[in-house]
């Protein structure tokens, strides 16, 4: 066994723009603002940046961003596919590049005007080839429909109820109510509001779905040694993994033996294998929440509970501050902002710096996950 990623690199800076349904500036401008804020947070000059990583769905590219912010010569750049499944992998790719000497200062970013821009599923041209020929003509049009199908089966097999999904929505909303940057900062959620909300795709209602947000975020990854000289307390990348399971089919994972075990299971095996601690040692988690049912599924996949127990895990305030596993402490995609999960990474960093708006006292370890139900990725962070 040669080089290891374990604690070899750290996130030294984070930055973001405001989050809103509509921001006036372009995605490119927002990207530059978030990246420059992250570099400033780290105390690193833009001219030192020599690596970039983002999502294939990102529409601002390295050439444009590098020349706008005044980056130096760039020797590593990568983009990760599958929408929100790529969030943690952007950091993982930079960590691997820096740990192996391919670069020294990496920037990962996501800038997206999903709040004011078009909904991706309305563009039928780009999505009708495989596997859409098997799904969309029948009106299974949106991610909410595709995940709703798995959610209904999960409810049937394991006795999960809408109250379990509400527990997830409520925990995220409660944290957003403590976070002035969150889109839902001043908007409390009640069980009555949830139970009487309009349907999006039964069994999923409005509050089971993430927000639609304009905004951008970025983080700066450097070697652990360099991070110790930076402005902020280093947050180490302890373990990182991607996950594309055998015979997986993306959000329409309907064609294998067990459609309810998704990419989380694959990423988790690799993640824990190379970590010094296990699920029981995680102080706070940032779990990808495009839809509430992804939380119980991910809790199972990442080993916080056994198969079929994810819904019951959410009971008794388990996901709230002071609970078994405080979750999505900035409000997550459900209630802070939906920017393909990048705000889960930056919130993980805040928690381990001790600067969260809903701080878990003494948090020393954090799991961050990317989109479940698509080829995914995850990070274990520690301070």
């Amino acid at each position: 066994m040669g080089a290891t990623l374990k604690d070899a690199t750290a996130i030294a800076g984070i930055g973001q723009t405001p989050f809103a349904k509509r921001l006036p500036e372009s995605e490119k401008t927002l990207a530059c603002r978030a990246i420059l804020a992250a570099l400033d947070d780290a105390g690193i000059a833009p001219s030192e940046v020599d690596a970039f990583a983002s999502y294939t769905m990102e529409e601002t590219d390295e050439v444009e961003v590098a020349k706008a912010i005044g980056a130096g010569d760039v020797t590593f750049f990568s983009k990760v596919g599958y929408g929100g499944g790529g969030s943690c992998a952007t950091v993982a790719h930079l960590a691997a590049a820096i740990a192996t000497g391919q670069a020294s200062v990496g920037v990962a970013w996501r800038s997206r005007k999903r709040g004011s821009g078009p909904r991706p599923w309305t563009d039928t041209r780009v999505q009708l080839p495989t596997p859409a020929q098997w799904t969309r003509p029948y009106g299974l049009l949106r991610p909410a429909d595709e995940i709703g199908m798995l959610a209904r089966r999960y409810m049937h097999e394991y006795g999960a109820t809408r109250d379990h999904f509400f527990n997830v929505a409520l925990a995220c909303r409660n944290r957003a109510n403590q976070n002035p940057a969150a889109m839902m900062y001043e908007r409390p959620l009640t069980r009555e509001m949830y139970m009487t909300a309009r349907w999006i795709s039964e069994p999923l209602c409005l509050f089971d779905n993430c927000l639609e947000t304009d905004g951008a975020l970025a983080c700066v990854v450097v070697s652990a040694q360099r991070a110790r000289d930076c402005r902020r307390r280093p947050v180490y990348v302890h373990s990182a993994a991607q996950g594309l399971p055998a015979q997986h089919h993306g959000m329409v994972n309907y064609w294998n033996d067990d459609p309810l075990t998704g990419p989380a299971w694959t990423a988790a095996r690799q993640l824990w294998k190379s970590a010094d601690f296990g699920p029981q040692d995680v102080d706070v988690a940032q779990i990808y929440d495009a839809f509430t049912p992804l939380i119980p599924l991910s809790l199972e996949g990442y080993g916080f509970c056994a198969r079929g127990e994810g819904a019951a895990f959410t009971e008794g305030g388990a996901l709230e501050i002071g609970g078994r596993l405080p979750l999505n402490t900035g409000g997550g995609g459900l209630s802070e902002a939906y920017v393909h999960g990048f705000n889960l990474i930056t919130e993980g960093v805040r928690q381990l710096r001790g600067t969260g708006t809903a701080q878990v006292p003494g948090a020393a370890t954090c799991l961050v996950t990317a989109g479940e139900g698509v080829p995914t990725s995850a990070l274990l962070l520690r301070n």
Partner: protein
Amino acid sequence: MTQTDERREGQEGQEGLLAPVPDDDGAPFFTYAARGELRVQACADCREPRFPPRPCCPHCQSFASEWIRTSGRGRIWSYVVPHPPLLPAYAARAPYNVILVELADAPRVRLVGNLVAAADAALDSVDPARIRINAPVKAVFHEVAGGITVPRWVLERP
């Protein structure tokens, strides 16, 4: 009402629904559906069925494939009832159902489709309250835009 009239009525109000855009691997499925046959791709060497169709067998890596005829029977594995926002033609029929049917002859093959009152009935022709997981269903065939025929599903015990 004649059969032709029923058919015309079924297709009216369904304008704007998306037709499948078959790829090379999937095209035979629709060719057989047009003949009223529900067939799935299987390996011609190890006989293992696979879905969605693809160039080679994930079990034995053979490029030889065949399309095996199924009974067209299955059970509802799960379902959703979409509500707007949707594409306009679907919004006009919402709430409608989308079901996932586990085929009796090939359990790992679960086909997405619609539960309807009859082959050419509207997308919302079955009350969603009547849908149950595990309900037995059988395939019927319906021509959509572009002359493509797709399977739809009716309850075995309406």
